[in-house]
């Protein structure tokens, strides 16, 4: 058992700032989870435990919230997360071709990470850019009007 904290000092400071604006600490839990993820890329069991203590919540309460939301990762992810939209307009416009290309090129299925930790591939519901379908987000950048020949160049920008 180690005394070393998982959540960084910087993240702790940002989380404590949240408490000014809410009637009770647990109301800030979603924002707090986002901060932990911003600093540590994902929310591990240890980080969850520390955060629950900070928020005066039980581990299970906090985990029930962390596992509810699509963009809180409770498993490790790579340096870059590819979120490929698989909703109806992207489906009509051929997202499956894009998916197959990414699966082959990166040897990944949805939910997996490359062995060199570079990319994780995840599905995401409608990105709200349906007039430019198919579309994906990598980290926080939107790429749309996707065709197979654009993909290599898009991926190269993310090392």
């Amino acid at each position, binding site marked *: 058992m180690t005394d070393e904290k998982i959540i960084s000092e910087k993240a702790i400071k940002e989380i404590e700032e949240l408490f000014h*604006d*809410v*009637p009770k600490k*647990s*109301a*800030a*839990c*979603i*924002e707090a*989870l*986002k901060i932990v993820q911003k600093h540590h890329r994902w929310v591990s069991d240890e980080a969850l435990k520390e955060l629950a203590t900070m928020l005066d919540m039980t581990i299970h309460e906090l985990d*029930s*919230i962390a596992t*509810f*939301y*699509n*963009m*809180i990762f409770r498993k490790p992810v790579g340096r870059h997360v590819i979120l490929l939209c*698989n*909703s*109806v*307009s992207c*489906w*009509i*416009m*051929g997202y499956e071709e894009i998916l197959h290309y990414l699966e082959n090129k990166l040897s990944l299925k949805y939910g997996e990470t490359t062995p060199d930790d570079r990319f994780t591939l995840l599905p*995401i*519901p*409608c*990105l*709200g*850019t*349906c*007039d*430019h*379908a198919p579309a994906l*987000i990598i980290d*926080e*950048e*939107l790429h749309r009007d996707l065709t197979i020949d654009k993909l290599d160049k898009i991926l190269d920008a993310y090392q």
Partner: protein
Amino acid sequence: MEQPLTQHIKKDGSVLSLKEYESTGGYQALKKALQSTPAEIMEIVKDSKLRGRGGAGFPTGMKWSFGPKDDGTPITKYLIANGDEMEPGTFKDRLLLEGSPHQLIEGMIISAYAFQANISYIFLRWAYHVAAERVTVALKEAYDAGYLGKNIAGSNYSLEMHLHTSVGRYMCGEETALLNALEGKRANPRNKPPFPQVSGLFGKPTIVNNVETLCNIPHIIAHGAEWYLGIRKSPGGGGTKLYGASGKVKTPGIWELPLGTPLREIIEVHAGGMMDGYKFRGVLPGGASTDFLTEEHLDVAMDFEEVTKAGSRMGTGTVIVLDDKTCPVGMCLNLEKFFAQESCGWCTPCREGLPWTAKILQGLEMGQGKMEDIDHLIYQTHYNAPGNTFCALAPGAMEPLQSALKYFREDFEKHIHDHRCGYKEHN
């Protein structure tokens, strides 16, 4: 043509700064509103017959009026802009958020004033990163200019405004689930009554309005209810609507048009008609959770009443076009997988019924379907109705399916008789 919400939005995609927004007349409506009483503002919005633009179409002025009567006791009240746009096929609020965040802010301040709210939130979906950056800048500009904070524009009215970015779940678009998300909980919906206007965020009176709805407010105040009602293309219209189209059309996009514009005009004129080699088969007029309309409905006016009469809902007004080379069964499968995944899990019919529906459709798509499967699907569309489910997610999920079974029944039966999806060879 009157395009009050989008006429100043820059075509190159860059944002309108505070200075630019003010130079087009921005924040004049706010100053005008602050010279009337909150009750007077509420009356103007009621008279305009503005209906919610988020999908449900509830009359906005009426929604505001359900709040507690002001007896002089100071209480905390909230106004929230619902910017969690995640209805598949919908992309209209993005344009408003990225292009003119001050228009939304001004609309929110006027609305908050009418409701006498003292704290407000913009609840923005995770994926809209550009909007989040621009709204953050716009909020600071508004505070610095005295449009937010204490004594707005020199009046007695004060309002705080915050941006909250969601962490991703379609349920957050449902107003009571949104409140739970803002309170740091799972985004399950709440029982109504009590309605949010009486007991909402942290138990306080709360109004939740869609982004597009709120963006109409400054223009209604600036030019009046009569002007607003006069912009229409059908008797049931009033004001403009951001219509959109996606799918295999020549020019998918968004267009601000008078409410009540016919569906045919949206598809054939603005969306440029079908791409070469494709024929129109049907359309979901208001996003994923609406019933299909087909060729016989092309002359229907896209307003709340006419689309309902035609057997569907106007919903968000962004249409998803089904072409003749795309499989309707596959489309239903994609839609039901989405709804099943996004179900919050709170009530049994939705949590169990939607994955079951998706599984049956998967079997059909893979050529393993039986005739009884159609009966099962029809059963689901009857069972997942308001009154059996806790909120409108599952009933909404059934809308495209029930109408597909009605209009594209032969496709479902062909999948069963041929033991395969015949559309796969087309693509």
